[in-house]
C-alpha cells in the first residue's frame, strides 16, 4: 500500500449564486520519501488539493489516506508551509519555531534542543533566536518557517509555493537547502508551484493539473539522472532542457484547449 493515497477527490465551492467545481476526480498515490509537485496554471485548484490533503478543508467527495488512515483522524503528521513565511511578528524566532511543539504539548528539553539544532543546521545561528521576525531577511524568515514546520516532525510536508515571494538568487539557494534537508530526513513532500523549472529541479514526479475544474492532466516521471542531483545542479544538467520543453508544450496545449473550450461557438 502506498504511503499517501488520494482517492476520487471532488471538491465544489458554494456561494449564494454559484457552485464552482474546483477539483474533479483526482486520484493519486505518493510513496514514502518521494517528492512530488503539482504544477498548473492559476485557478486549477492546486492549493485546494493541498488543503484537502492536509485536512484543512473537507472534500465534497473522496478520501485521503496517509499510511492507510484517513487524514481527518491524524494529528501533527502533516506539516504545511505557506507562500509567505507567516511568522508571528510578535513572537521571537525561538517562540515561533517552538509553536507547533507547544500547541501539541510536545515541548520538552529534548524537542527544544532538537529544534534549536535544526535552526543551526539551516545556517541560522549567532543568537537570532531572541530576535523578532522583522529583523530578518526574506530568505532567513522562510528558513525559520521551514524549521517551524519540521519541528513537530511531520511525516508528510506540504509546500504551497514557498519560494514564490523570494528573489531569484535566494530562491535557488533555498530550493537546495529544502531539498537536501528533506532528503536527509527522508521526508515525503508535496510541492505546489507554477514554476516549471522548480517543479523539475526538486521533484521525483510532476502532476500537471488542468484548470476549471482541476483534473490531473498528465504525470511526468523525472529522469533518474536529475533526481539524484540537487535542484541547482539539476537545472544545469543537459536532461533538464528536454523535460522542460516537454512540460512546456503540454502546458501550451492545455492553455489552447481551455481557451478553445471557452470560445463561444
Amino acid at each position, binding site marked *: 500500500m502506498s504511503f499517501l493515497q488520494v482517492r476520487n477527490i471532488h471538491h465544489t465551492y458554494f456561494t449564494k449564486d454559484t457552485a464552482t467545481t474546483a477539483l474533479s476526480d483526482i486520484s493519486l498515490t505518493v510513496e514514502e520519501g518521494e517528492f512530488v509537485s503539482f504544477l498548473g496554471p492559476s485557478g486549477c485548484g492546486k492549493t485546494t488539493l493541498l488543503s484537502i490533503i*492536509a485536512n*484543512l478543508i473537507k472534500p465534497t467527495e473522496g478520501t485521503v489516506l496517509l499510511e492507510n488512515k484517513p487524514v481527518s483522524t491524524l*494529528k*501533527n503528521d*502533516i*506539516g*504545511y508551509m*505557506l507562500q*509567505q513565511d*507567516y511568522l*508571528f511578528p*510578535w*513572537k521571537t524566532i525561538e517562540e515561533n519555531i517552538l*509553536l*507547533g511543539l507547544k*500547541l*501539541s504539548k510536545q515541548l520538552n528539553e529534548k524537542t527544544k534542543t532538537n529544534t534549536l539544532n535544526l535552526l543551526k543546521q539551516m545556517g541560522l545561528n549567532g543568537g537570532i533566536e531572541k530576535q523578532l521576525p522583522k529583523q530578518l531577511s526574506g530568505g532567513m524568515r522562510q528558513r525559520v518557517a521551514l524549521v517551524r*514546520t519540521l519541528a*513537530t516532525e511531520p511525516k508528510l510536508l506540504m509546500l504551497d509555493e514557498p519560494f514564490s515571494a523570494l528573489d531569484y538568487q535566494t530562491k535557488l539557494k533555498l530550493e537546495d537547502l529544502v531539498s537536501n534537508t528533506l532528503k536527509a530526513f527522508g521526508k515525503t513532500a508535496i510541492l505546489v508551484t507554477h514554476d516549471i523549472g522548480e517543479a523539475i529541479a526538486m521533484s521525483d514526479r510532476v502532476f500537471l493539473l488542468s484548470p476549471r475544474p482541476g483534473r490531473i492532466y498528465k504525470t511526468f516521471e523525472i529522469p533518474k539522472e536529475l533526481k539524484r542531483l540537487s535542484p541547482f545542479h539539476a537545472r544545469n544538467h543537459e536532461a533538464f532542457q528536454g523535460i522542460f520543453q516537454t512540460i512546456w508544450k503540454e502546458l501550451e496545449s492545455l492553455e489552447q484547449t481551455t481557451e478553445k473550450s471557452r470560445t463561444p461557438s
Partner: protein
Amino acid sequence: MNKQLKKVELLHKNYIQSLKVEKRWVRFYQAVIFVLFFSIWEFLSRNEWIDPLIFSSPSKIWNLFIDNIQDGSLFTHLGVTLTETIFGFLLGTFLGVFIAAILWWSPMISKILDPYLVVLNAMPKVALGPVLIVALSPGYPSIIAMGAIICVIITTIVVYTSFKEVDPNYLKVLQTFGATRFQCFKEAIIPASFPTIISTLKVNVGLSWVGVIVGEFLVSSKGLGYMIIYGFQVFNFTLVFLSLLVIAVIATIMYQLVDLLEKKLIKQ
C-alpha cells in the same frame, strides 16, 4: 575624505540645531496662548467687560482652588470621580473585549446579535442614567455602570471587527499544528488585535469621563460632576470653572498615561 566627513558632521549638527530651535518656538507660542488666554480672561472680568458672576476669573478660581485643597474637599471629590472613572473605564473595556471574544467564538451568536448591537450603539447611553440609578441605587455602582456602559458597545464593535480582520493565514498555520479554537484565539487573534485594543483604551478614557460626569450630575452627592451641578444650582460659577479645569487636567493626564502604555506595549 576626512574633509567630506567633517562637512557631513557639521551639516548634521546644524540640522539637529534647527530642530531644537523649531521645538523651542512651538513651546514658546504654546506658552503665549496659555498666558494670554488667562490674562485676557482676568482682565475682562476685573473690568467687568464680561459678567464676573457668570464667567468668574482665574484669580478667584485659584483662590477657591487653594481653599478647597486646604479643607480637603477637592481631594474627596476628585478621589470619588477618579475611582468611578477608572473602574468604569476598566469594566467597560474588559466587558467589551469579552463580548467581542464571544462573538468571534460563535459566528452564529454574532449573526443573531448583530441588529441589537447596531441599536445599542446608536442609542445615546447616557439616556439610561435614570434607569441605572433606580436599578443600582444612587452611588458608586450606578455611576461606574454609567462610565462602563458608555464605552462597552463601541469597544465590542471595534475589537470584534479587528478580530475578524486578522490574516486567516495565521490561523491556517495554527490549524496545521492542530490548534484548538482557544489556542488560535490566544496565539493569533489577541496578539494581532492588541494595537486595536490599546487604541480603544484611549477612546474609552474620554468616554468614561463623560459617563461618570453625567452620572454625578444625576446622583448629585459627591464628585467633580456634583461640584459642577452644585455650583450651577447656587450660582457659584467659580466652583463650576474650578471643577472644569481640574477635570481637564486629570483627564489629560489619564490620556497621556494610556498613550505612554500604548507606546511601551506596541514597541515590544
